[in-house]
């Protein structure tokens, strides 16, 4: 009797998957042609790409003109269209980067940019050493150096400002010593506070001193600033100013103190309620009419203040969104630990809240970066303004000149905004603790 039962002792070798589901073909079937609607969409998308991409590449590279000294080079023989006129961008590149900054002083912008880079890059790398010193240099020393390098320094600090500073510090010292005057303590109780105040006073005096010191640099007025340099000055100032002001406003808006809350709400709603164009326009056209006759103040400074306040209002709402997402238990836990308000915010709430709203913050930054081009309506020549100005040079006026200029602007803005976006994604990944699904 033979044993009819059959027990397989080895695994049957896997059949190769059907050819249509593996490799490139399989991937295409799976992802592009999995159903009839998908197939239609794929074909439509491919058609769009076919329609758009080759002409753009052709214009930007294949038919482009790369050499020439004036408009003649970029005119097609006997009519017809040619590609991008890159010699035009090359001729104007200095202006696109430095604006109308004097030629022999451009090294100052280069140096500023170099300092910025060597301080910024390590600050962005999480594991880089000397983080504290780095950040102090970047946020404390660098702005001073940049102001002096770009403007030429040697500011005249008026006597009244010194007087005001001394009065303010005297007042603060008086407040710190209040318990002593009231007979409720000894000077040694207030020692720490006094030391901090003295330190702050010395720092302010140092800043004044450095700003008013004449380093022998030629003064370069802001109307000569322009191009990428001006775009970055406005964007970086706006970004750096808007985050702390925005956090303060967000905290203020959620405060229980009615006056603080009211002021924050009014400030935020006012700046969110007016378009940036209006803010800039008011600062440039209307403000001079309010000022006494003959008093002018720097147009760029006006724009910087306008942009910074405007961005702060948006930042405040982004941060407030983060604050509201923190469960009440976190606040209560912090209070139960005996933390005071700033400790609670600084140690428990803000680190969580800010991490949550990184996409929103970066969104605001990117929006701000692109909004800086609006300053061209008030006669500041940022990159786009400089590019548009160069269109009016009859020496380079051709049918493709403006297309080329705008293409250059698009490439520049894309690189910067995409860079910011990627860095924010990297930051989110790094800080995702507890939220990753």
């Amino acid at each position, binding site marked *: 009797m033979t044993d009819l039962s059959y027990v397989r002792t080895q695994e049957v070798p896997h059949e190769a998957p059907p050819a249509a589901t593996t490799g490139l073909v399989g991937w295409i079937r799976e992802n592009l042609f999995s159903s009839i609607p998908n197939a239609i969409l794929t074909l439509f998308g491919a058609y769009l790409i076919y329609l758009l991409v080759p002409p753009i590449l052709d214009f930007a590279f294949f038919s482009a003109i790369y050499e020439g000294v004036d*408009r003649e080079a970029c005119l*097609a023989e*006997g*009519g*017809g*269209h040619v590609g991008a006129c890159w010699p035009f961008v090359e*001729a*104007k590149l*200095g*202006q696109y980067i*430095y*604006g*109308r900054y004097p*030629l022999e002083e451009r090294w100052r912008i280069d140096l500023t940019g170099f300092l910025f880079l060597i301080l910024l890059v390590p600050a962005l790398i999480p594991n880089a050493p000397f983080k504290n010193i780095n950040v102090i240099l970047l946020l404390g020393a660098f702005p001073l150096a940049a102001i002096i390098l770009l403007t030429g320094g040697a*500011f005249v600090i*008026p006597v*009244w*400002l010194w007087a005001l500073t001394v009065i303010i510090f005297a007042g603060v010292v008086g407040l710190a010593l209040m318990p002593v005057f009231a007979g409720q303590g000894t000077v040694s109780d207030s020692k720490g506070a006094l030391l901090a105040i003295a330190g702050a006073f010395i720092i302010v005096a140092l800043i004044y001193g450095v700003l008013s010191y004449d380093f022998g640099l030629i003064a370069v*007025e802001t*109307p000569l600033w322009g191009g990428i340099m001006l775009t970055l000055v406005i964007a970086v100032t706006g970004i750096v100013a808007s985050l702390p002001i925005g956090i303060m406003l967000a905290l203020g808006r959620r405060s229980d103190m009615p006056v603080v809350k009211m002021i924050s709400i009014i400030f935020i709603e006012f700046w969110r309620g007016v378009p940036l164009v209006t803010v800039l*326009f008011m600062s*440039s*056209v209307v403000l*001079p*009419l309010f*000022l*006494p*006759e*003959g*008093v*002018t*103040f*720097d147009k760029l*400074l006006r724009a910087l203040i306008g942009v910074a306040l405007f961005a702060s209002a948006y930042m405040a709402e982004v941060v407030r969104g983060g604050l509201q997402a923190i469960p009440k238990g976190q606040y209560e836990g912090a209070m139960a630990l005996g933390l005071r308000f700033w400790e609670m915010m600084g140690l428990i709430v803000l680190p969580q809240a800010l991490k949550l709203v990184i996409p929103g913050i970066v969104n605001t930054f990117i929006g701000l970066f692109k909004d800086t081009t609006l300053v*061209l*309506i*008030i*006669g500041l*020549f940022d990159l786009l*303004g400089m590019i*548009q*100005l*160069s*269109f*009016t*040079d*009859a*020496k380079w*006026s*051709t*049918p493709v*000149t*403006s297309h080329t200029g705008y293409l250059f602007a698009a490439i520049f803005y894309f690189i910067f905004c995409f860079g910011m976006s990627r860095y924010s994604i990297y930051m989110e990944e790094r800080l995702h603790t507890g939220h990753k699904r």
Partner: protein
Amino acid sequence: MNVRTIGAVLAGATLGLVATGVSAATLDDIKAKGFIQCGVSQGLPGFSTADDAGEWTGLDVDYCRAVAAAVFNDPKAVKFTPLSAKERFTALQSGEIDLLSRNTTWTMTRDTSLGLNFTGVTYYDGQGFMVRKDLGVASALELSGASVCTNTGTTTELNVADYFRANNMDYEIVAFEKADEVVQAYDAGRCDVYTTDASGLYAQRLKLTNPDDHMVLPEIISKEPLGPVVRQGDDQWFNINKWVLNALINAEELGVTSANAEEMKGSDNPAIKRLLGTEGAYGEAIGLGNDFAVQAIAATGNYGEIFDRNVGPDTPLGISRGLNALWSNGGIMYAPPVR
């Protein structure tokens, strides 16, 4: 020190401002600060634009340089403030600039109600027509039935309507928001005629695929005299600007150029002598040196040189003198004599 002045000083001090101290005597202020602040456009081909080196050039710009040369004997003693059309008058009224040289049309309203004075005409502009040469049209009067490309909502549209109606011609308006759109539509053949200010026509022509296939018709259907502007209430500064311009025009008429200005001082012609300050004290009368005209002409050239260098036939723009030729050459450029 009245309250207003104190207010100014305080406001200035608080915001780190600079009190330019506009007073009645603009010339004194300018001499004190060492340069002229001149308002120009934010970019207009041939009138004010930045060249490859980033220097401002153009007809409007050269006028500022001429004034600077007349005052300081240094055409570089001028700083330029690029202004939008909306900002320009405010900037002048508020004292931000001393002189506005920004292709501004001289109209009665502007001259009388804004507290400003026009000092003369640097360029007689006016609305013109551009057509394809192969259309075979030699005069705007032959344009009946044409489709006309122009900008929306400007006086150009109204001028066209008036002109065609007055001459009993049919037309069809094809209007666009932006100048670039208008040019592209015209270039693509969507209309027969492109109309805007004549100086603009020449500038836009360069953006056409085949500029040589197009021509600007001789008719000018509106008056757009462009001139420099100063604040009202300072006759000395007004006179300086007026007479620098007149000196440039007179210089062309008398054959004084940037090259020969110095040697022309030895000329026997009494008109040249008076212009160049070797006879009489005409410069002193406006608070400048008697050789202010020599300085200006040597720096920028006479009116004809300025015109030719920036917009003339040898530049890419290639604008012919037309109305801007001297009165003795069939134009209407005319300056009162120095006497």
